[in-house]
Each structure stands twice: as C-alpha cells, then as structure tokens.
C-alpha cells in the first residue's frame, strides 16, 4: 500500500539556521560583516589588501579567508597586521555558515567593527549560501568580459555592492562598460557600483568612503 509523507523540508535549512546564529552573534558584538564573492582571480584579496591599508587606522578590521587548499591569501592579509582566520574548504566550492561560525570563534570579535569574509572563487555557488553577513559584495573584473551579469544573474542580483575591478586594463580588452552597466541596472537596479583598480588604486577613495559611511551609519 502506497503512502504519502508530506515533508516541506527546506534543503538548506541547516545552513540557514547557522547563518541566523552568526547574524545574532555578530550583531551582539557590534560587528558588520561583508561577504566578498567573485570568480577565481577577479581580485578579491588584492582589493582587501588595499582596502585594509586605507581603512585600518580608522576602523577596526578583521578578515576570514576562504580558500580551497592554501594559506596564501591569509598570509597576504596577515602581513597587514589585522586579525585573520583561514578556512580551508578542502575542495568545497563555497563557504557555508557553519564554517564561518567556527572561524568567528577564533577571532577577537570584540575588537572588530568590520569583518570581511572572502569567499571561495566561484561565480555560482556562494550566492546561494547565506553566511550571516550584513551585505554581499561582488567583484567582477573587466578581463572576465561584460557579459557576466547576463550569464550569471544570480550573484549580481544578490549583491548589494558590485566592484568592477582591473579598470587599469579596460582599454586592453573589449569590455563594454555601458553594456555591463545596462545589464546590472536590469538585474539589480539598487546595487551600488564602483569602478576600481586594485593595482593603481583608482576608485578606492569612493569605495572606502562608502564603507566608512556604511560602518558608521548602521546602528
């Protein structure tokens, strides 16, 4: 005899529960957390290095680094003298909220106002996993092409801020800034977009000013 069992079970429920707990812990300690996402090599770590250099005297910063196998990115940040914790996902294609919870335990959250979480380089999966962050920040570099918003709309939709990086190289590519901006305006018309170069520092004044305002403005 056939029997039907109703479930209505959310598949990502475990992650959502962890994310909710992270959000409570962070809010309790007065930490704002940013989840930094992009495809591999778009410049997340280089952007972090430059951002940390310009903000570390004004804002107490911390970083969680997600990486498949190595400590390389964490070492780059550690040199700048701020607290950093490295998560090795062991091949996992995204960070999940439980990994971030473990990392948070290893950081002096009382001494941090702004926590950056560098996700694993991947343009698809990280967008689906809430980490408990306050804001999703996405990096897209001009060398990847202007068609990325149209091809990977999910992450562009989820991001509150989009950093278009490697602008120093834009003239060497066929990257169409207008087409990119037009697609982003369709997918996520409320997103803040900054055109930057982590190599030359172009655009970082605006981006860092925005971050300062964000950290101070939020209750």
């Amino acid at each position: 005899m056939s029997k039907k069992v109703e479930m209505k079970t959310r598949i990502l429920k475990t992650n959502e529960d962890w994310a909710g707990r992270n959000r409570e812990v962070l809010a309790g300690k007065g930490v704002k957390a940013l989840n930094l996402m992009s495809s591999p090599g778009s410049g997340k770590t280089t952007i972090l290095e430059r951002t940390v250099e310009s903000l570390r005297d004004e804002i107490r910063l911390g970083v969680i680094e997600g990486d498949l196998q190595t400590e390389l990115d964490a070492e780059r940040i550690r040199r700048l003298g701020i607290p950093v914790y490295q998560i090795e996902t062991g091949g996992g294609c995204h960070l999940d909220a439980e990994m971030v919870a473990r990392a948070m335990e290893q950081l002096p959250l009382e001494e941090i106002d702004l926590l950056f979480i560098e996700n694993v380089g991947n343009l698809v999966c990280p967008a689906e996993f809430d980490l408990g962050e306050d804001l999703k920040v996405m990096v897209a570099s001009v060398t990847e092409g202007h068609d990325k918003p149209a091809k990977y709309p999910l992450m562009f939709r989820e991001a509150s801020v989009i950093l278009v990086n490697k602008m120093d190289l834009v003239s060497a590519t066929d990257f169409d800034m207008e087409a990119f901006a037009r697609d982003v305006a369709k997918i996520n018309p409320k997103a803040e977009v900054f055109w930057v170069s982590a190599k030359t520092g172009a655009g970082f004044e605006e981006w860092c000013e925005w971050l300062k305002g964000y950290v101070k403005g939020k209750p």
Partner: protein
Amino acid sequence: MHELALMQGILEQVEQKVVEHALKKVTRVKLVVGKMTAALPDALRFCFSVLTEDGPCAGAELEIEEREIVAACSDCKEEFTVRGIDFRCPRCNGRNTRVVQGNELYIDFIEGE
C-alpha cells in the same frame, strides 16, 4: 556545482522519514526548485540516480517542480514573471522590486510502501 552535496542532504532527510514512518521503500521523491537557485534539475537528477543505486530509494522516481521567478513591485504592487534578466517593473518601470517566488528549494513530499 554543489548538487551532489545537496542531494546527499536531501537523501539524509528522506531516509530519516523512511525510519519515522517505517517504510520499506521509497517510490517517489518530489522536490520544488526555484529558478533563482543555483541548483540545476538535470544535475540533481544525475546525482539522485548515482546516489540511489541501493538503499531505500533504489528505483524511486524523482519529480522536480521548477518555479519561475516572480517579482513584486513595491511602488505599483504589480506582480510579474521575470523573463531573462530584467527585474524592473514592466508596468511602472520601478526599481523597487523583490523576488516573491523562485527562491524555493525544498522537499515537498515522498511516497513509499
């Protein structure tokens, strides 16, 4: 990309129900997957077939109901299906829209004996 991990999670949940309801075998698993998620139905089907070669779900049918992306406009209250990548309101051209359907990712029900 992480459909294998998703399917492992799904089957764990299903097997828990199998025990709770003293089922001998599962004949059907029904999922609901919104198009805003990164989970691809074909990849889910493939992972299901690989992971259910034996166990209580062996031979079970996997049904996946896909949900279109529907957004609602906060300015004029219009609800519309998002086609392609345009999330702006087709009625008032408003930018204040939010997704009201398409983020679903859940196990609806199972059937078994």
